[in-house]
């Protein structure tokens, strides 16, 4: 008897879970769109509440996985089964390809998501399938890489953001003499190494033009200009913390937020971290100049919103995706997260962010590592390790660049 009751209950539950054939509103006249991503959940709730206001029939249920390293596994498992979300944050470029190849995502076009037509081609590339060239996501963020500095320490030492390379070194010397670490940088977490190398080196190798030449196999990374670029890490070593290869990323963050260091070369996402953990530190940003003059500010697309190919609410999901590609959402994203939205034509409210936006517009470049992160082991992992060895004095800059060439040659 009990068994029969259980069987009936089970059957009822299964029917309730079964995909509804009509993609429109459910029983209660309200459908739920589930969205997965990483980062603080409160941000999602705040942003999606706006969409719910505009679309009373839709309830957006955001779930955030704070352990971002496990997110990829959770997402690929979810999308492979039936437990996946309707929409999800996707990684950019190489990390996106396994999901595309497995056919887990719905290709998006400008018919469903008109906003995609206005996106910058360089931004959109990070959300495309490498083989079929189709767009699989609406990019949400663009990250820029630059030097963040402590305005008070600068003012106390009579320093201003450097206009020339010589001025930058002179200021660093001045800070060092006062017992302040000029650049808070740690080489122990090796993913930071290509980031910092690109902050100081992109202008040396000539930004996007050089990357295009490497892709077309006209040039190699062992080119003297690239070698000179990454050699900046060696040249600036006296201005990094002592025993730099043993200093971790979090150590570097603490060095800066505690005022022991004056500058932090890193991504724009650090502004959020420092804004919360070093509230009394007034932040400024600059692009490091080179001996030739103006420096370049590298940037990359951080990720995108994709639609699960198995979604039960395709029409609603696509409508939501269209909103995610709109300026309304772009503004909401930038002002909520203090990060650039990937939606074109959004001017940030935050003055510091606006300053970075102007600089990126004028002197922006592509972050080289994300374009060359393919292969197994990935060229990014190989080169990060090579840079670490270079910082330890075990490889020359040229040898490190040659290792990158060798790794890239396995897949390019």
């Amino acid at each position: 008897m009990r068994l029969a009751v259980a069987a009936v209950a089970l059957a009822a539950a299964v029917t309730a879970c079964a995909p509804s054939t009509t993609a429109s509103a459910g029983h209660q006249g309200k459908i739920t769109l589930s969205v997965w991503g990483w980062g603080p959940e409160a941000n999602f709730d705040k942003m999606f509440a706006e969409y719910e206001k505009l679309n009373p029939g839709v309830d957006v249920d955001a779930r955030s996985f704070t352990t971002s390293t496990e997110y990829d596994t959770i997402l690929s498992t979810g999308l492979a089964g039936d437990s996946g979300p309707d929409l999800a944050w996707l990684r950019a470029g190489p990390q996106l390809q396994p999901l595309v190849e497995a056919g887990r995502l719905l290709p998006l076009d400008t018919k469903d998501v008109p906003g995609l037509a206005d996106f910058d081609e360089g931004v959109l590339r990070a959300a495309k399938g490498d083989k079929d060239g189709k767009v699989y996501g609406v990019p949400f963020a663009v990250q820029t890489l630059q030097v963040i500095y402590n305005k008070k320490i600068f003012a106390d030492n009579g320093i201003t953001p450097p206009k020339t390379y010589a001025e930058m070194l002179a200021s660093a010397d001045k800070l060092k003499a006062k017992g302040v670490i000029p650049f808070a940088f740690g080489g122990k977490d090796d993913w930071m190494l290509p980031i910092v190398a690109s902050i100081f080196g992109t202008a040396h190798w000539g930004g996007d033009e050089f990357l295009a030449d490497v892709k077309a196999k006209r040039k190699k990374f062992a080119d003297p200009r690239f070698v000179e670029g990454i050699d900046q890490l060696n040249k600036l070593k006296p201005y990094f913390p002592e025993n730099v290869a043993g200093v971790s990323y979090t150590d570097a963050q603490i060095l800066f937020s505690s005022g022991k260091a004056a500058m932090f070369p890193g991504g724009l996402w650090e502004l959020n971290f420092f804004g919360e953990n070093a509230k009394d530190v007034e932040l400024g940003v600059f692009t490091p100049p080179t001996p030739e003059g103006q420096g370049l500010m590298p940037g990359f697309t951080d990720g995108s919103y994709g639609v699960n190919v198995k979604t039960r609410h395709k029409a609603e999901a696509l409508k939501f995706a269209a909103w995610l590609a709109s300026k309304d959402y772009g503004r909401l994203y930038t002002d909520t997260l203090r990060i650039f939205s990937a939606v074109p034509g959004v001017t940030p409210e935050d003055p510091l962010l606006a300053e970075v936006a102007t600089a990126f517009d004028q002197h922006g470049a592509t972050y080289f590592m994300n374009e060359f992160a393919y292969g197994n082991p990935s060229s990014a992992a190989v080169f990060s390790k090579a840079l670490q060895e270079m910082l330890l004095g075990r490889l020359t800059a040229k040898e490190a660049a040659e290792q990158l060439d060798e790794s890239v040659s396995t897949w390019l």
Partner: protein
Amino acid sequence: MAVGARRGSSYVFLVPAFLLYTAFVVYPLFTGLTYSFFSWKGTLRAGFAGWDNYAGLLSGAFLDQLLPALGHNVLLFAGTMAVQNTLGLVFALALSRARRGKRALQTMFALPYLVNPLVIGYLWTLLLSPAFGPVNALLKPLGLAMPWLGDPDTALPTVVLITTWQWVGFPMLLFSAALGGIPQEYAEAARTDGAGSWQVFRRITLPLLKPAMATVTILSFIGSMGTFALVYALGGSNGAPAGATDVLGLLFYRTAFASGDVNAMGTSSALAVFMFTFIFGSTLLLERVLRRKA
């Protein structure tokens, strides 16, 4: 007849355990094995790949990571044997002579291995941090400050020391138990015959500890080969600095979860099968050799 029937019915009691073992051990292992013979598109199984995934493990770029990682596992094993297990024996011998506080001391030595290796690793990165760590702050006035985890030459020995710090209580307990099982009469008889304490140790205690040593060696080997959590906490998934603490576990983690390679599932399954075969085979061999001697 009655005996046969009883034996027959006794097998029935094994069925639940057998089913659980099959479902949770045999089946996953077998699945991993089959995965390694297919090529993958993300989580979607594509065509049969034969030995391709295994050939991939031996390709230049991958082999350049595999061999050093394996080498570091072996070095960790050697270091563990030399430092941790020797100290464990010394502590066990010292404790066997202690008149008071034996249990309290045993518990204290064994305490760190109740803590998760990830936590231990995190604590030690803080202690050894060149920017804020108290260890170097104390050693600096003496001129003994070291880069510890920041230099490839000192990183792996530092890992051995931290492993020792955590696990030394384990061989100590095993050796203590074995020492407790050696009848006092042997040593007394030897002393009556004029043997010194070194001779008693060398000729009586040590030979009788051999079975315990075999157990400790085999467990240390399995532990060193499968290590992941501690090295991950100390040097991240790439085995910083410069891959000096890279081990098979980290290589597997990177290949399976962090490479972004479309065929990551195939390559990592092949690597898992290789690791299993290598550890299982070596353990069998080690067991043979050690048991024969013991």
